[in-house]
């Protein structure tokens, strides 16, 4: 597609429920990133996928968070047993390659998650 596409754009869920957030990167981009931004805060790295390599999961805050990327394209971020502190905007980004020069990273519009 023309840009990074994320869904849903907004999600309200009850505490304890599971949620899935979807990201469709720019066509042809091999690198995909998930970030989280709490209200009024900076961006917190969650996870990074690059091609068929093992993902960098070092930013996931707890074992309730997981992500997968199927077929090297679409990614799903899953949050199990949601807590109120999970409320944030979840931003997905992609770039042509993971490293090296000339790899501008493009962000989607985010999925706004509210846990009540």
């Amino acid at each position, binding site marked *: 597609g023309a840009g990074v596409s994320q869904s849903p754009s907004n999600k309200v869920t009850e505490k304890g429920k599971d949620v899935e957030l979807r990201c469709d990167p720019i066509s042809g981009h091999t690198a995909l990133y998930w970030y989280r931004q709490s209200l009024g805060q*900076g961006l917190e790295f969650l996870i990074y996928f690059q091609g068929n390599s093992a993902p960098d999961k070092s930013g996931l805050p707890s074992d309730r968070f997981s992500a997968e990327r199927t077929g090297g394209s679409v990614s799903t971020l899953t949050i199990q047993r949601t807590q109120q502190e999970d409320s944030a905007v979840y931003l997905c980004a992609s770039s042509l390659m993971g490293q090296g020069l000339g790899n501008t990273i493009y962000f989607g519009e985010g999925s706004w998650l509210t846990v009540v």
Partner: protein
Amino acid sequence: GIQVEQSPPDLILQEGANSTLRCNFSDSVNNLQWFHQNPWGQLINLFYIPSGTKQNGRLSATTVATERYSLLYISSSQTTDSGVYFCAARPGSRLTFGEGTQLTVNP
């Protein structure tokens, strides 16, 4: 990991004024980007600038890689420039963001 520091944290301008935002980073980088986050939360790419100088309209940016800093210049500011400006850098694969500069341009 790399540390990215931005200054000032907050900036208030009158429309028409010029400003300079600074980003310091603690390691050599292969990617440095400036973003503008609009009031709706969308991150808009301004510059990809791991080194050198670029200009786009009223905005320009300079990165001095050997001294590990980057500057974003905004000239003749407009109210639509308001929002948060983020610098982000990476030496490898992970893009690390600074805390941002909150810019408010008053009419």
